[in-house]
């Protein structure tokens, strides 16, 4: 009898010890995983990559996409790299994605982490180019616009607009990126002639804002106009007349 109860006690202690070991190990492990997942927030993924959390869950880190890329664009992050352990990413300033029409990286992916639903490379959203206007040559008034000319989504992802310039009759021609067309391939970042690229591709989440749905931009589209909007009737008052003396600008007197 005595022996059984001792054994049982020992058994219970052992079970408890093991449980504690597994639980504490598990907590530490979960923490490590969380840390790793956060590290990926800045990585630029291959075309067709699922949203970051889904991508991290689905990718098995096999590197078949890396091997399929004819330009050696993609890398599989070794431990201690900027992207999370073993996941594929690329650094546009080194080698951008040249946007192959047949998307071989996506075709090679066995898991679907690079989604088979991506059929046209122009629909991919690897990142979004943003311009540092304080260091962009064009924004200083020089005629660069290299990014605009190199962009494979010609004229749609980067347009060149003119912009008035102080102390000069000549306008500036400045590049502007349009998120609805930019694929995030990074060819612009690679091409930018400044010492540190003045145009860079970053994960859209990190830079894109969102207008609240309660803003109705009626001047941009009809649907934005509130249906029952009626401008208040003008209040007529005797003083409600243009100040004659100040109206010379509109009367062609200049």
């Amino acid at each position, binding site marked *: 009898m005595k022996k059984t109860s001792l054994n049982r006690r020992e058994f219970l202690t052992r079970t408890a010890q093991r449980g504690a070991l597994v639980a504490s190990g598990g907590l530490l492990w979960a923490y490590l995983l969380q840390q790793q997942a956060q590290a990926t927030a800045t990585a630029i993924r291959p075309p067709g990559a699922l949203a970051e959390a889904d991508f991290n*869950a689905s990718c*098995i880190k096999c590197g078949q996409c890396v091997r399929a890329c004819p330009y050696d664009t993609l890398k599989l992050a070794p431990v201690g790299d900027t992207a999370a352990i073993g996941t594929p990413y690329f650094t546009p300033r080194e080698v951008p994605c040249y946007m192959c029409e047949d998307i071989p990286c996506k075709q090679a992916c066995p898991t679907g982490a690079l989604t088979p639903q991506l059929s046209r490379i122009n629909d991919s959203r690897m990142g979004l180019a943003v311009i540092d206007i304080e260091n962009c040559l064009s924004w200083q008034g020089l005629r660069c616009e290299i990014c605009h000319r190199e962009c494979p989504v010609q004229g749609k992802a980067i347009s060149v607009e003119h912009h008035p310039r102080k102390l000069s009759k000549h306008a500036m021609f400045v590049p502007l990126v349009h998120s609805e067309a930019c694929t995030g391939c990074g060819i612009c970042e690679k091409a930018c002639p400044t010492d540190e690229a003045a145009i860079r591709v970053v994960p859209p989440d990190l830079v894109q804002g969102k207008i609240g749905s309660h803003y109705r931009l009626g001047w941009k589209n009809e649907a934005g106009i509130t249906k029952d909007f009626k401008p208040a009737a003008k209040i007529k008052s005797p003083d409600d007349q243009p100040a004659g003396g100040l109206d010379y600008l509109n009367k062609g007197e200049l």
Partner: protein
Amino acid sequence: MNTAAKENKLGPNGKPVRPFVMPKSMRGKLSVWRYLIYRRTLQITILLLFYGTAHWGWNIAETPIIVGNLSASKLLGFIPLADPFASLQIMFTRHMPQNELLIGAAIVLGFYALIGGRVWCSWVCPINMVSDLAAWLRKRLHINDNFRLSKQLRYSVLILTLLLSTITGLAAFEWVSPISMFHRELIFGVGMGWTAILGIFLFDLLVQRDGWCGRICPLGAFYALVGKLALLRIGFDAPTCTHCCECIKVCPEPAVLNFSKAAQQGMIISGECTNCGRCITVCPEDTLQFRYRFKTSTHQPAHSNPRLTTGE
């Protein structure tokens, strides 16, 4: 060796207990090492095939031989292969992988289910070379265990892996696996992955013999379960066994060599056996041999076992 004490002893079968003696001739030595040599050859060949395909463009008729790594790959351009445990973890994150991965995982799973789950461990896994080296050195340096982890711990780690995969939404073991890290970095460029290997080496060397592979690794635990029904087994010819225990000394999973169980079954039945063949070549009585699970054995098991009839 500690032969003096055993010199005059008789085994349960009435025959004298002979110790294992390493043969003097090179031929004899090679024969003792034969499975070790086969295993290393296979392990290194697999590594080389991946590496050669990736870096030296190895191909057969323009088709790359094997692209990817041990987590998932494509053999000869059309046969998908995938780590079934990694695939299972992905499914536990509630993401359904594409068919290609599922088929690859099924092929690999089927293969190991037939020839022994832990054949992966001793014949393919690159960590095996590290842990074998640690075990060998530990024997040389006479380092004793100063700490004991249960052999069952790995099954808890296995369950924890699946649980954490669901909770964190990341394939929990794949994200920290030193096996995948090591193999990936060998093929895709080296980072800090080797520190994990060093960790395993030191743990196995200084803390606990076969600590990683035999007690912690959930992939080994997974394959131990897969191998429960495998057809390729280490056969145990009970009447010839003198219980010299040479096999137990070399086995990385000694609990697996349970003589009474093995005698009953005529083979080693535990899924934890890695089919490495170490025991076969040190057995002085040729008791142990690879065998097919369902072969009609020449010896009647149980009741013709001298241990159970005369040896009492």
